[in-house]
C-alpha cells in the first residue's frame, strides 16, 4: 500500500520533556485520518513537524517511498503539505484574495497577476466553498476565516491537508458544512489529517484513527471497527465512565435575576444586549454561544468589574448594580473565569498557592498585615479536598499542570461558601479525567443549593451537566431551553441567531414566574422558559 506520507519513530523533546516519543503514523492516499489524543498528548507538535515549524530530534518522514527532510514551512509547502492552524494565520486588514496571494509562490514579476482571482474562484467552486475574495478578513466570521484558511492551502496545491482542531470554534451547522467540504476534498484525492479530541466527530468523519497518549504512539484503528468507548480507553489509558451526571435537586426561588442587562465591551460596542435570565439555587444554568458573544462581559458585569449601561442585577430580591466587587463578593456571588491562556484572570501565576488563596479576602484581617498562616491552612484544605498534585503549598501556581491550576482556582471560589457560582470555561484545556473531577465539584455545589452559571464551550457537556441552557448570540438572548427537551441542532441554530425562541407564543423567556422582585409583580403571568 502506497502511503501519502509516513512517519517513522519520530521523537521531539522540549527541555527534559518528551512532546513526542517514537511516534509512527501512516496516511493513506485519499483518506481522512483522525489524530486523537488528550490535551498535551503531542498531536499539534507532531503536525508542526510536518508543517516545518519544528524539526524532529530523531525519526524519519517518508513521502512516496523517499525520505524527506522538512526544515521550514517553505519545504513543507513544496512537498504539498498544508496546515490549517487552530489559531488562524491571516492578516486582518487584507482581503481574502490578498491573504491567499501572500503565500503563492508562482506569482513572479513586479505586478500582481489578475488571474489569481480566477484561480481562487475556480478552486472555491470546485470544493463548494462560499467565499467573497474581496472581503476583508476583519469583516469575516470565524467560520469564514476557517474556510479561507482551507482554501488558501488548496490554492497552494497542497495534497496533504492537516487541520488542527477545526471544529473547536464552529457551531453544529458549520461543522456539518465543514465535513461536507472535507469529504469533497477526499473524493478529489486529497489526504487529510484532522486533529481533534471530540469522539463524535472522529466517528462521523474519519476513516482511520491514530491515538497518541502522553506523546507516545498508542495505536491506529479503523473507525468503522471501533466505538467511542474503546477509543476513549485508548486515549485515556483506562476505563472511564463517560456519563456526566446531572443531579436533580429541589430548586429554590430565583437567587440571581438579570433584567434587561446591557453592557459594553472594551471597544465600546454593545456586548450584552438587554439580557434577561435567572438562576435558582440548586440548578446549573448553561450559557451557550459562539466565542465572543458577550460571555466575558456578562461575567464581569455580574461580578461588578464592568460598568453596566442599563438593567438590573437582582440578588435575593436586592439590586446589586453599582456595588463594589468586594461588596458583591460578600453577598456570596463568586465568579471564576478561565481565559484562553488559562492563567490571566483569577490567579497570580508567579505567586504561591498560599498567596493565591487570599486573593479575594486578603483585606479581611485588621491592621496592615496579611494573614499568611490562615492562607496556608486554606491552601492545605483545598489541596487535600480537591486532590491537587503539588510539591507544597508554596509552589508557584504557574508550575502546576493545567488541571491542578483550575482546581486551585475553583477550590478557592467554593471555599468561601458562595450561593451563586459563576464559572466560565472551567474545563478549558483539561483532560477527560480532570474535567470529570471539575463536573463533580460543580454537582457537589449544586447539592448545597448553590446556583451555578456555567459558561461552556462543549454543547454535549452542557446538555449533560446543566439543567437549563441559555443561548446567546451577539449578546442577545436567543432563548432558554431545558436540556432534557432540546437537541444540539436547536442550540446550534440559536447560537448563530437563526432561531429565536424569545417572545414566542406570548412567553417571555428568561423571566422567572416566582420572581423575588416585589415591584415587578405584574410579570407574574410570564412563563418559565422552555418547560
Amino acid at each position: 500500500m502506497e502511503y501519502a506520507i509516513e512517519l517513522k519513530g519520530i521523537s521531539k523533546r522540549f527541555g527534559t520533556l518528551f512532546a513526542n516519543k517514537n511516534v509512527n503514523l501512516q496516511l493513506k492516499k485519499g483518506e481522512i485520518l483522525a489524530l486523537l489524543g488528550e490535551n498535551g498528548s503531542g498531536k499539534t507538535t507532531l503536525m508542526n513537524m510536518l508543517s516545518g515549524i519544528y524539526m524532529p530530534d530523531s525519526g524519519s518522514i517518508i513521502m512516496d517511498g523517499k525520505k524527506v527532510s522538512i526544515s521550514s514551512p517553505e519545504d513543507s509547502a513544496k512537498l504539498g503539505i498544508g496546515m490549517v492552524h487552530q489559531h488562524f494565520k491571516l492578516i486582518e486588514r487584507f482581503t481574502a484574495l490578498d491573504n491567499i496571494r501572500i503565500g503563492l509562490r508562482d506569482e513572479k514579476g513586479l505586478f500582481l497577476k489578475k488571474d489569481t482571482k480566477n484561480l481562487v474562484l475556480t478552486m472555491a467552486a470546485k470544493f463548494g466553498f462560499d467565499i467573497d475574495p474581496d472581503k476583508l478578513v476583519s469583516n469575516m466570521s470565524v467560520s469564514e476565516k476557517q474556510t479561507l484558511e482551507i482554501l488558501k492551502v488548496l490554492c497552494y496545491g497542497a495534497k496533504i491537508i492537516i487541520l488542527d482542531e477545526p471544529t473547536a470554534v464552529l457551531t453544529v451547522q458549520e461543522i456539518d458544512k465543514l465535513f461536507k467540504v472535507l469529504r469533497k476534498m477526499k473524493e478529489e484525492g486529497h489526504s487529510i489529517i484532522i486533529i481533534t479530541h471530540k469522539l463524535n466527530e472522529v466517528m462521523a468523519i474519519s476513516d482511520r484513527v491514530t491515538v497518541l497518549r502522553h506523546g507516545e504512539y498508542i495505536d491506529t484503528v479503523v473507525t468503522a471497527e471501533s466505538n467511542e468507548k474503546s477509543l476513549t480507553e485508548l486515549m485515556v489509558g483506562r476505563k472511564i465512565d463517560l456519563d456526566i451526571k446531572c443531579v436533580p435537586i429541589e430548586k429554590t426561588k430565583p437567587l440571581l435575576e438579570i433584567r434587561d442587562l446591557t453592557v459594553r465591551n472594551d471597544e465600546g460596542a454593545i456586548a450584552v444586549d438587554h439580557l434577561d435570565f435567572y438562576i435558582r439555587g440548586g440548578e446549573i444554568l448553561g450559557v451557550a454561544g459562539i466565542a465572543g458573544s458577550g460571555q466575558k462581559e456578562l461575567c464581569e458585569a455580574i461580578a461588578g468589574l464592568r460598568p453596566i449601561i442599563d438593567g438590573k442585577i437582582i440578588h435575593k430580591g436586592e439590586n446589586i448594580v453599582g456595588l463594589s466587587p468586594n461588596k458583591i463578593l460578600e453577598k456570596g456571588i463568586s465568579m471564576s473565569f478561565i481565559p484562553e491562556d488559562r492563567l490571566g484572570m483569577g490567579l497570580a501565576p508567579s505567586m504561591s498557592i498560599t498567596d493565591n488563596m487570599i486573593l479575594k479576602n486578603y483585606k479581611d484581617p485588621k491592621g496592615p498585615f496579611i494573614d499568611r498562616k490562615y492562607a496556608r491552612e486554606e491552601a492545605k484544605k483545598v489541596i487535600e479536598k480537591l486532590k491537587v498534585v503539588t510539591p507544597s503549598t508554596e509552589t508557584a501556581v504557574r508550575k502546576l499542570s493545567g488541571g491542578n491550576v483550575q482546581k486551585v482556582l475553583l477550590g478557592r471560589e467554593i471555599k468561601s461558601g458562595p450561593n451563586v457560582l459563576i464559572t466560565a470555561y472551567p474545563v478549558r484545556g483539561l483532560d477527560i479525567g480532570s474535567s470529570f473531577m471539575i463536573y463533580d465539584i460543580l454537582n457537589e455545589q449544586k447539592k448545597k443549593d448553590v446556583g451555578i452559571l456555567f459558561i461552556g464551550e462543549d454543547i454535549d457537556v452542557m446538555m449533560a451537566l446543566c439543567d437549563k441552557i441559555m443561548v446567546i448570540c451577539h449578546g442577545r438572548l436567543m432563548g432558554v431551553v431545558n436540556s432534557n427537551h432540546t437537541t444540539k441542532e436547536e442550540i446550534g441554530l440559536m447560537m448563530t441567531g437563526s432561531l429565536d425562541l424569545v417572545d414566542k407564543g406570548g412567553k417571555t423567556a428568561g423571566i422567572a414566574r416566582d420572581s423575588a422582585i416585589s415591584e415587578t409583580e405584574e410579570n407574574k403571568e410570564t412563563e418559565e422558559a422552555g418547560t
Partner: protein
Amino acid sequence: MKKYHLVRRPVQSIKRLLVYYLIGIVISLGIGAILLASLGINPFEYYGRMLTIGMVGNKYAYKNFEGFLKVLVPLLITSLALGLSFKMRFWNIGGEGEFLIGAISAAIVAFNVTGLPRPVTIILMCVAAMLSSGLLGVAVAFFKVKFNTNETLVTLMLNYIMLYVITYLGKTKEDWNFFLDPKSARPIFGKFPETAIMDGIKIGNFNLLWSVIVAIVLVVLIYIYLKYTKHGYEIAVVGDSAATAKYAGMKVGKIIMRTMFISSALIGLAAGLTASASGTISETITNNVGWTGIVVAWLGKLSTPAIAITSVLIAILQFGCKTAATKYPSIDSNFADLLQGIILFSVLTADFAATFTIKKKEDAKNA
C-alpha cells in the same frame, strides 16, 4: 539551518548562579589584571587595595569607610526604591531625575530655612525632597493609569529635564539664584549653612552618619512592607497579572500611583540625605545611582536582602576602584569606571549563562 539554539534551563539553582557569578568576576578581574600589568602596576596590589577599599595599612582607614558609606547609602536606598516599582512591573527608569529634583528641593530648604536646630532642618530637607520626588513619580503613574502613556519613555525624558534644570541653576549667575555661592565670581553651587549639614554618631574618630542608620532601618522596613503587608501583597499581584488584580477587586490605578509615590519618595529621601551629607548639590550628585540602581535591583532579582547585599558589593567596587586608582599616577578614576564596566558586563553575562544553556540540535536520524 541553525545548528544551535538557546534553551532556558529547566531548574534554576542558586548555587549554579553564584558559581557563575564568581567565574564571571574572576574572568573580568583577569582582564583587568592584564590591563594593569601592561601599565606596570602590580594587579594583586591594586585589587588588594580595591577590595579592602584602601583601609589596610592606612592611618585614616575610618575616612575611607566613611567615604564608602557615602557611596553606599544613596545606591542602596535608590536600588530598593526602584525594586519596589519593578516588582509591580512599572518600569521606572527615572531614578536620576527623581534623585535630582529631590536634591534641588532639599537645597531650597537648606538655603532658605535658617535658625532652626540641625535635626529639624535636615528632616525638613528630607520631607521636601520626598514630597517633590514623590509627586514627580505620581505624575508619571497618573499619566500611565489615565492615558496609558509609556512610563519608560516618560521617566527617561524626565531624567534629562531634571539634569538640565540643575545645570541651569548651577550656571546662571543672577540675583535670584540663591543656590550659588555669593562670594564666587564664577557660578558655582554654594555650601549649605552649618545647620543643614548632617552629623552623626562619633565612634572614636569614625563618624557614623545618621543617613546610614536610616538606610539600614529602610532595608528592614521595605522587606516587611513587601513581604507581610497588604500593600506588598497588592504590589505582587499587580506585577504578576493586572487582570487578576482587577478581578480580585483591587483598584489597580490607585495601587500603581501609591507605589510610585513611595518608590520615588524613597529616591527623594536618598537625595535629601546625600545633599545634607555632602553639604552642597551639583550636577553629579546622583553618582549615577538612578542607572546603577536599575542594575542592582535586577542583579538582586528584586529581593530586598539580595538588593542590599548587591549594593554593598557594587559600592565596594565603585569606591574601592577609585581609592586604589589614587595610589597610582599612571591611571586615574577612569580606569575605575572601565573596570566596573567590565565586571558588571561579565556578571550580567554570567546571569544569562546561568539562566540559559546552548544546545546543539540533533539531526534527524534514521529510526
